[in-house]
């Protein structure tokens, strides 16, 4: 047992060095006013947090990020699950479709975001070309402030769908076949087999998918940065997200203490949501037993 702990020490030390210390440092920094460059770093107490409460950019970013996260997680989960059920059936084409759906997951975000920027282009984008073929008017996917956020949601769902689907697929394939066979013998329909047997057994996977997707969604940044870059892009305020706001305050305005305060709040939000999700799952499993 002692050997196990000793063997784990290097990786724990590394984790501490690259994760825990920076988080702790950010927390400390949130009580200071510092521009990253100056050696002066006056202590300002809770001032950064108090200022955040009145910062309309922060409030807007919080609202947008919450809307983006809940929409993306909900849609990406709700679409991935039936897709996984469908693709779990034995078919020669199933591996091909799994690969197709998984491709966006392994494609780096920057080229993907640039490609979507072209797809969404009002004049030359393939999406509006598709709409024109069925007689629908062009949509200003990026430049219309009321639509831009939803354009990001669509892209976000597309990016994580394959990942969620593969996780569900693994879960479905691990459900013992005899459970489903027994239900079939008892006369259960496909829907009843899914709802009464597969779905309850998939709950741990569902929890994992929701937790990881929520954390990832709250940390959305790259696509926002790319989609708002340049003159032919989304209005910054329409898609302002928390990490983007942290980046702006930290690395454009060099307000590191203020940006750290924002980062601490983001961490607390994600931590809080994760705890809620875990406790809900625990309640459910307790009821189940």
């Amino acid at each position, binding site marked *: 047992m002692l050997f196990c702990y000793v063997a784990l020490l290097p990786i724990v030390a590394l984790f501490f060095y690259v994760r825990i210390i920076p988080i702790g440092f950010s927390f400390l920094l949130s009580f200071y006013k510092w521009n990253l460059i100056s050696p002066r770093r006056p202590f300002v107490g809770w001032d950064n947090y108090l200022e955040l409460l009145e910062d309309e950019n922060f409030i807007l970013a919080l609202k947008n990020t919450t809307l983006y996260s809940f929409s993306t997680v909900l849609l990406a989960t709700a679409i991935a699950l039936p897709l996984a059920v469908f693709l779990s059936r034995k078919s020669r084409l199933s591996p091909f479709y799994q690969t197709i759906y998984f491709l966006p997951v392994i494609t780096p975000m920057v080229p993907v975001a640039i490609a979507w920027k072209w797809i969404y282009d009002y004049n030359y984008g393939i999406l509006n070309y598709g709409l024109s073929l069925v007689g629908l008017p062009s949509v200003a996917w990026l430049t219309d402030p009321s639509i831009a956020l939803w354009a990001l949601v669509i892209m976000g769902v597309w990016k994580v769908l394959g990942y969620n689907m593969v996780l569900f697929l693994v879960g479905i394939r691990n459900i013992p076949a005899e459970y489903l066979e027994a239900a079939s013998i008892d006369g259960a329909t496909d829907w009843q087999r899914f709802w009464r047997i597969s779905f309850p057994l998939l709950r741990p996977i569902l929890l994992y998918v929701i937790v990881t997707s929520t954390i990832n969604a709250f940390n959305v940044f790259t696509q926002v940065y790319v989609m708002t870059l340049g*003159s032919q892009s989304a209005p910054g305020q329409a898609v302002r997200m928390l990490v983007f706001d942290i980046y702006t305050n930290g690395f454009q305005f060099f307000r590191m203490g203020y940006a750290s305060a924002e980062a601490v709040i983001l961490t607390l939000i994600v931590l809080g949501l994760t705890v809620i999700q875990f406790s809900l799952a625990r309640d459910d499993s307790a009821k189940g037993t």
Partner: protein
Amino acid sequence: MNHSIGRRGALQLAAGAGIATLGGRKAKAADVTLSIWTGYPELVKWYEAVGAEYTKAKGTKITILSTSLREHEQKLAAAVPTGTGPDVFDVGQILGITFIEAGLIKANPAAVDAHLKGGAYRKSSVEQFTTEGKTHGLPMLFSTPAMFWNRTMFKEAGLDGPPKTFQEKMAAAKKLTKFDATGKMIRSGMSLRLSGQGSGIAEKFRFILEPAGGTLIVPNGKGKFHQGYDNEAGRNALKYYVDAVQTDKVDDPKVQHDAAAFVAGNTAMLMREAWVIGEIKEKNPTLDYGVAPIPAWGSGPHKTLLQHNGLWVNGKSKNLDAAYDFQLFLSTKEASVKLTQMSGWVAARSDVDWSPLLKDIPQYKEFVAPTQGVQFYPEPVMAAWNEIETRLADRLPNAYIDPGMLDPAKLAAFIKAAAAQTDQILKQNDLYGA
């Protein structure tokens, strides 16, 4: 004999020592490698060319790292204070002043100071690079916007030449804008910055605000500032944008914008800097265009923004002497001409003979020798400037397309709120003074 031998010996010794010293210097210079960081990828070829000449002359090796401007600024902010930055770097004055205030860029040594003050640069350039009576860094780029106009489109529309006032510009733009059969704009009369994010949106807003008589911040004469656009000029500038998009419909956020639009022939007029000439030369060399001063507001003067990009020596460089020497080498007349020829940006030196360049590309005239009477409004050199512009820029795109802005009261309320935020940022940075 002894004396003679002694003298010869002494001479031989001196010669030997001289050769040894030179050899030693040569060897030392050859051992030195200067690292240069730039936020302008289009300057890399120029750095390489001048760097190669410098290596040939002095033996010092040069390495160049280029990233996008934003990444460059972030890298500098993290690397310079920790002593891991480059020896020489280029960056705008807003970040430059932050380094100066933190003591990370030292006052120029005598040779660099004398070069800057020796008449090679405009007075405004010298003033911009002087902080508390001491010069820091050297001006590298002298950046002013002017108005690009498409001659072919103007001829087609029956227009004689470029508009002289913003009012004439709007009238011309109406004739130059094109729509398809469905009413969709396919060519804008003028290309304004209407969408995206970042300080550039507010910077372009100033292209109209300043000629209209306003300004983002006004110095109070005691080292403090307050907003200068919650007034008729501010409201006029915003109304101009709103009219262009909503009333006169000469621009639309949905159509192609900026240099790409002008180069592709998708807009008739664009207010931008000299680098667009390089873009046109590379991507659409047959484009028939002219460059005129930024229009005046009514009978007011022609005004244009003046921005400098500086060439700085990192105060923590381990090769300070070599770095200052290379900084001067990059700032010679020959290097300045080469800079403009190779990158499209205008070099900051004012004593350069531009005639060969103008013979080749006459459109450069408005940038290298602006029309007499054009007034420059410099970018304030303060660390909070980026936040002031960016925060205003956050608000503007929505206002441009908001139908509510057609109501003068709502438009005035918008300007009032934006200006209050500017004052608030000044207060937070202890820079506010009524």
